[in-house]
């Protein structure tokens, strides 16, 4: 079991900065995120896009902002559980919590800070009415173990990088790979597009465009998908296959957190913004884009502020008998858990003869 003071759910900018503010208060943090890398939507959606409203940064790329935050919090040695989604929460008698992920990893913490942004990123599922019946029975939205597809027939749908890359990768493993896309154009990296064309010409990938999967057939397990070419009902045909892998990118969903008994309004978690961004469950805070209160703005800079005040409240909760006096980092420096110490250089006293 992973033990920490503050368990942060969400490794976006707000969650990352929480580690810094908590660290100044000598509180240890651990972060869970469903994505395999830190940064949240900044890394996942728009790493190369500029942001102009971070105080004192006239312009900063989203990816660089995340890199800077990771550098800033390094001395406080945060733990990470990446690629796992916070699933269940249990409140213990002493007021602490156990949070379990979808893969069963358990985290024990005195305080929970939900910095979940828009929610956890999950695969976008095509709107086929019976698709959920075939999940893990021939339909999957991600490829965990490529060897599962050895000598099998695989149909991949999608027109982005992951559809292209996996088609290329599986061409050598599966017995048949069919790539289906709604358009003739693909929007992946140029070299991937070229590679797919090469594999198509050599007969290693079958390409069906413009086409869409409109139905799934099977008795308990998938055995065929229904393909419609040229958006024409007269050009429909069944394509037998062992696997159907729709790869349409990721979309954020509030997910299991919505069932934690927290007060939800407009797909966001209600918090007390007059005080400390605590939710209706004492000990659980919500900060950044995931929360709502009168006048809420979903801005990174607001998330930073919320994280700072929330940490003060968390400190009081964890140390009810201690009084904390706020110190400027310029005065007190930054002492990391790794033994590092940053501080302002001392002025030199020297007389001039």
């Amino acid at each position, binding site marked *: 079991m992973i033990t920490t003071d503050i368990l942060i759910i969400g490794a976006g900018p707000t969650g990352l900065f929480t580690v810094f503010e908590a660290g100044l208060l000598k509180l240890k943090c651990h972060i869970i995120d469903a994505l395999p890398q830190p940064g949240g939507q900044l890394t996942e*959606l728009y790493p190369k*896009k500029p942001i102009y409203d971070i105080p004192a940064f006239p312009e900063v790329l989203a990816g660089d902002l995340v890199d800077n935050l990771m550098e800033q919090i390094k001395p406080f040695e945060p733990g990470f559980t990446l690629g796992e989604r916070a699933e269940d929460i249990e409140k213990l008698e002493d007021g602490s919590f156990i949070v379990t992920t979808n893969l069963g990893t358990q985290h024990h913490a005195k305080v929970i800070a939900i910095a979940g942004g828009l929610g956890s990123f999950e695969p976008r599922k095509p709107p086929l009415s019976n698709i959920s019946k075939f999940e893990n029975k021939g339909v999957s939205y991600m490829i965990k173990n490529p060897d599962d597809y050895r000598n099998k027939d695989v149909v991949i749908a999608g*027109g982005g990088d992951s559809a292209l890359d996996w088609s290329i990768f599986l061409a050598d493993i599966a017995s048949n790979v069919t790539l289906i896309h*709604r358009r003739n154009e693909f*929007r992946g990296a140029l070299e991937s597009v070229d590679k797919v064309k090469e594999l198509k010409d050599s007969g290693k990938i079958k390409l069906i465009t413009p086409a869409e999967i409109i139905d799934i057939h099977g008795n308990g397990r998938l055995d065929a998908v229904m393909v419609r070419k040229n958006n024409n009902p007269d050009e429909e045909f069944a394509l037998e296959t062992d696997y159907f892998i729709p790869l349409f990118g990721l*979309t954020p969903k509030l997910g299991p957190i919505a069932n934690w008994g927290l007060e939800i309004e*407009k797909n966001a978690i209600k918090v007390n913004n007059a005080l400390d961004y605590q939710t209706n469950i004492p000990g659980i805070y919500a900060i950044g884009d995931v929360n709502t209160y009168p006048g809420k703005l979903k801005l990174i800079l607001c998330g930073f502020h919320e994280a700072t005040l929330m940490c003060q409240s968390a400190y009081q909760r964890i140390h009810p008998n201690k009084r904390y006096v706020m110190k400027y980092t310029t005065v007190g420096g930054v002492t990391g858990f790794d033994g590092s110490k940053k501080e302002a250089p001392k002025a030199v006293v020297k007389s001039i003869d």
Partner: protein
Amino acid sequence: MSLDINISITDREGNAHEVTAPTDMSLNLMEVVRLHELVPEGTIGICGGMAMCASCQCYIISDTALPDMEYEEEAMLAEAFYVKDNSRLGCQIPITPDLEGLKIEMAPEEM
């Protein structure tokens, strides 16, 4: 002088709303839908208006002339679901006086 235009927006439940939208606030169509809360908050404009999700997808009903699609919008609509020939991303359509009388229908929410 600011000029408001009239837009007709059919929400995801099929109810039509006649709304006005200011043309001098650099709004886009997605933001107008949010402004009037015509679909639940949190189910539209998820990416913030960067053409990186399709949560503001709408169908253009009137024959109003619209700005051409840029590469990013086109690419997103190639991946989105429920796409029709008249699909556009609301976040990529700035509110200008030329849009007077525009009529749109919101596309279903992706599950």
